[in-house]
């Protein structure tokens, strides 16, 4: 099978993720990784699925694989931050989320993770700034979604 065949697998897995069918998504992503272990997106998607399945330690490993292939992969940093937060590792979670927003300042989720980590670490002033940024981005997305809904 040619390497670019991982793309349909990833697309189908993303669809399953949206439908919260995580087991099905996981099977496809395992297959995609076997086909092309150098594709960072497959590792990142599998980390997303494992986070949803509360397999946070495994998700961190998958994020690590994605970042070893592409160290500027903003979404993988963001997901790593989320998984680390869930394990109560606030300092490394903050570092990962900070890296994520430095690569993609429009990642509402990463700003939010920054906020909750800073809050847990007692840095409420800094947390408030991160929350405000996250809220601003979330509102922009919400307004866009609302417009789409109205157009439909």
């Amino acid at each position, binding site marked *: 099978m040619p390497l670019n065949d991982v793309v349909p697998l990833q697309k189908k897995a993303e669809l399953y993720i949206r439908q919260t069918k995580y087991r099905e998504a996981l099977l496809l992503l395992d297959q995609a990784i076997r086909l092309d272990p150098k594709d960072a997106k497959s590792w990142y998607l599998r980390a997303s699925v494992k986070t949803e399945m509360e397999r946070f330690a495994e998700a961190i490993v998958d994020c690590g694989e994605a970042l070893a292939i592409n160290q500027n992969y903003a979404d993988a940093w963001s997901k790593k931050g989320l998984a680390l937060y869930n394990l109560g590792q606030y300092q490394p979670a903050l570092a990962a989320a900070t890296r994520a927003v430095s690569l993609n300042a429009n990642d*509402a989720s990463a700003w939010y993770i920054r906020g909750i980590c800073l809050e847990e670490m007692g840095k409420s002033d800094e947390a*408030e700034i991160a*929350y405000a940024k*996250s809220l*601003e981005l*979330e509102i922009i997305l919400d307004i866009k979604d609302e417009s789409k809904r109205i157009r439909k």
Partner: protein
Amino acid sequence: MKTNMPLSKPIRRFISETERMLDTEITLLRKPDAAPGGTLVDVYTYNIDKNIIIFPANYIGLLKDFVIAKQCTHLFIKGAAAKKSGYKICSFTSDSVYTGMRQIYLDALKDEVNKEKKLPVKKLLEMLFILYRQFHEDINELPWNPIVNARIYYRMSQLRKTQLYILLKDGKQDMDEMSDMMDIVPRRYFVLDKSMFYARDLYLAKTLPSDKLTPVVNIPQMKKFDHLEVKEMLTTRWTHTAWYQSKVFGDNMLTIMEKHLDVDWSGDATLDYYATLYETGVSLTNALLAYMSMKDWFIWEKPKHLLAAQEKMAIYEQDALKRIFGDLIEDT
């Protein structure tokens, strides 16, 4: 609490507090097709083992936290009522549906006399129950909205900016609701419905006035509200719409709200406190129903009564039509 999602500290604390006080479990569920305001499926209303708060999957940060705070506050109110005096909601019976639909029909007749374009009979008949249900839905939701919002504003200050955005959004939606039915619905009901939302917005404008909408000024769509306080925003919006004629009724409803919502919004989170919030909501609901001359339209009953009534909705509608129109109505 059952969740693997990140939550800000005050929300996490509030959920734990609610679970402990009510001796219950709350599950948070993210769903792509969830209603923007979220949904609460609770043990006090439905025959289930645990409470579920459902929220839209695209809400990932503070929007999600606010939706959870809102639904959790409502859950606390319901649970406290259930544990103290008993939890009841506005339900309906065959008789109360008849009373409501008959009144709507009489008012519709008055309206039709002055209309150039008469409403087709079939549409008129359909409208009676649709409008009755609309008011049932609104009266079971609207009085609780200012209570829940005021409580969150005073207890979870971190969520205020988010709350202002949601108020802005919800208010617009409620203002536009029923607009497509404007030519069908009797004027009286259109105005009363709008007046309830007008009163709610003006009440919230007075109760939560101190924060400005500055966090969202970078968003082009919201620039026009720059430097506006929420009070100015909500009042300005109403005075600039076609529904300003709702002002007379709305101002009266506002007076009712202010009289009934005389509550210390920062009170300690005890069962007694939340049971008081429930009693406040009940008395506000009754006062609004009395003001709108709808006292006999609905009855206070246990939630399972309403669930059973909803199963019989079609029968109640047909029965009411037969009682109003006699043999003119055929069995369907």
